[in-house]
């Protein structure tokens, strides 16, 4: 079976889509599927001549980066220019697809990867499986300028997957979905349980100048408005009985977000209690997780962030908004609060951060959930099954 994957991002780009795409592609390749990957060339300025940079990945498949593309400059370019770039990218991807001759195209992220993949698949008359990851649907659906392309992508696909029920429900409300439509949650690589937490904590506290004798909660990833970081700060300020510190493992995508954050930290009197690591590679993030007392994911809107499963796999308890209620079971393998409900989050932090035994038990249960439900092989097998269904359709 030959599958051409078209992913909106791919490592070394950071972000959930890149990490998930690499995990899924590697797993499928390992299972014997012949893969090739197309993604964008993120560093190529709009003035570049249309091009493809192809490299052989260490796992043994080809990675093709198509440029120039507007992904990181979407707000600065007009619609005409974006349309030209889409058209040029389509020509290049068509050529790559003709050479590779895939049986199926699998896109990650609806716009623009999914949209272009739908055209390529139509041209080659092969099935197109599109995978919805998060804001590609949950924000794109409400974006007047993207709605038409989104609708085309979804309604013309042969199959569609979502990383959670929330996204699946949104799409069902809006569109006619393909016959094959499934929720395939993210997966996680399960490693040996971490056993040197005390040493890791000491190293972390020293490196990021975090106070001793206070619990540390982590916020992991790009600090964007939809992630609910403002709610977390308000909750930390409202916690009464303890005084937890916050380590942001990640950074701000936009300077305005950083300034807004800094202002809020000052206003809430949290300046001594917040540290930021700056961007870290994925492996380093995984190493830091066990040093935390808990991870908080207060998202207003999300797909299935990798940090959720990775924290669980590392045995770190997660306080998550109800966006993740299909993974977290309140009081058993994590703690769930209603999104936007700062008071509830503050109450939970106050109550549980001072009970290490409960946190440990929740962390162990979380790791067990990760092993039983979210091992990457479940995800891989789900995609393999869907591929086979799509290819067996008349």
């Amino acid at each position, binding site marked *: 079976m030959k599958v051409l994957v078209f992913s909106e991002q791919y490592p070394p780009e950071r972000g959930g889509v890149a990490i998930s795409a690499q995990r899924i592609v590697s797993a499928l390749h390992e299972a014997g599927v012949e893969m090739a990957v197309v993604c964008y060339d993120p560093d190529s300025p709009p003035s570049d001549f249309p091009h493809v940079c192809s490299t052989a990945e260490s796992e043994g498949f080809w990675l093709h980066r198509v440029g120039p593309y507007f992904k990181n400059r979407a707000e600065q370019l007009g619609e005409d220019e974006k349309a030209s770039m889409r058209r040029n990218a389509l020509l290049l991807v068509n050529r790559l697809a003709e050479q590779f001759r895939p049986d199926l195209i699998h896109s990650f992220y609806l716009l623009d990867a999914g949209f272009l993949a739908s055209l390529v698949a139509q041209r080659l008359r092969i099935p197109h499986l599109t995978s919805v990851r998060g804001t590609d649907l949950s924000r794109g*659906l*409400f*974006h007047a300028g993207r*709605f038409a392309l989104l609708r085309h992508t979804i309604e013309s696909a042969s199959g569609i997957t979502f990383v959670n029920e929330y996204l699946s429900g949104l799409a069902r*409300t809006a569109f006619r979905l393909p016959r094959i439509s499934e929720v395939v949650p993210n997966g996680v690589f399960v490693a040996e349980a971490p056993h040197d937490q005390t040493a890791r904590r000491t190293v972390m506290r020293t490196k990021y100048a975090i106070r001793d004798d206070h619990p540390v909660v982590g916020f992991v990833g790009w600090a964007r408005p939809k992630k609910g970081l403002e709610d977390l700060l308000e909750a930390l300020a409202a916690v009464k009985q303890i005084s937890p510190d916050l380590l942001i493992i990640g950074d701000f995508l936009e300077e305005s977000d950083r300034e807004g954050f800094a202002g809020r930290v000052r206003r809430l009197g949290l300046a001594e209690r917040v540290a930021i690591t700056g961007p870290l590679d994925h492996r380093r993030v995984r190493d830091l997780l066990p040093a935390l007392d808990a991870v908080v994911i207060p998202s207003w809107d999300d797909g299935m962030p990798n940090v959720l499963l990775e924290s669980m796999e590392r045995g770190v308890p997660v306080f998550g908004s109800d966006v993740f209620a299909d993974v977290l079971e309140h009081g058993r393998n994590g703690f769930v609060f209603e999104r*936007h409900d700062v008071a509830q989050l503050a109450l939970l932090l106050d109550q549980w951060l001072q009970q290490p035994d409960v946190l440990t038990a929740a962390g162990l249960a979380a790791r067990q959930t990760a092993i039983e439900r979210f091992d990457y092989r479940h995800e891989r097998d789900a995609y393999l099954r869907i591929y086979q269904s799509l290819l067996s359709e008349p």
Partner: protein
Amino acid sequence: MRVLLVPEAFPPSRGGVAGSADRIVGYLRQAGVEVWAVDFDGRAEFGPSLSVTVDRTRECTVLVTPFFDNDRPVRIPERVKAVARREATLQLTNVARSLGIQLIHSMSVFNAGFIATFVAGALARPHLVGVRGFGRHPFDGFRAECVRWVLERATAVALANRSLLELLSVAHPAVAAHATVIADSVSPRPYPGLDAAARDALRAEVGVGPDVVLIILAANLREKKLVGLVLQALAAVPLAPATRLLIMGRVHPGVRDQFDADLRRLGLEERVVVRESVSQEVLPRWLEASDIVVLPSVDYGTTNIVLEAMERARCVVASDIFAEVIRHEENGILVNRLDPAALGRAFAALAADLQSRNRLGTAARAVALAECRPDREANAYIGLYERLVAS
């Protein structure tokens, strides 16, 4: 019956849609329908922390705040608007579910109808899409697909006048075949509402004496009301008798330069006055204090101001888009769209002819009272609601 009414604007916001929503809600409640009205609050400063709550200070109102206002000069990026639409949708769905809403009635296709389509879909309730003016949406590459989607997903479509049905028949014929026209109405008030002293005092507020012919254009000036058209027409009107144009609304930043340049070029600085729009309660007084009310619209849209001016027994000069309610030279004057010369001739003739103005105004009030009654409009909606809920 419990209905969620989703207008684009609701009082205390101003404008035609807010006025229509207020009137329709009032008459539906009088008729015993439990109407919950959604207020998208564009008055507060826009920010990311949107909330949707039942407003305990007002009767059956759901407040969505802060929401963006497209008439505000600050440009909000589309991706930020998308997030606001999503948050409004998700939270409004929860509130509507908790209220036990049986039917959703949106009053503008975009954004209200767009958001309402999701809410209705999530709750599996019928959705009546009200169309009060497409603006340029059918011709807008950005929004056309959203508009099509809203109309195609609607359980029923009700248009505020026949001119909208004409456009719908061309742009979305399959939808038009099943659409209903429920014409706008106007609430009757005692007439006259102003004595001579009150009239003179109002006019004095904008520097217009009792003998000057006062023409009112009540609208925010965007491309829609075609600034240049009205100014060119006014420039063609002789200086005697004295005429003044009062623009009640905001001159949008996008047309401000053109507006100022036209005023200078045409020598109209002394003949045009601009002031902010006024509330729905005060507007009838201003209309009554005027001599002519002008509606030069090119877009297919709502007829509120026309009806309100008619109800105040004013002489209305309108583009032929309003032929549904204005009968030329019987109860008003119709001119071709985008014809400044014809508009100028109409102004000049009426400015010089008080008797004609009075005759047309009297006839206009008679037509408004006889044919545009709010109870008739409300009953039409109730009949449609009952059919939709039953089906």
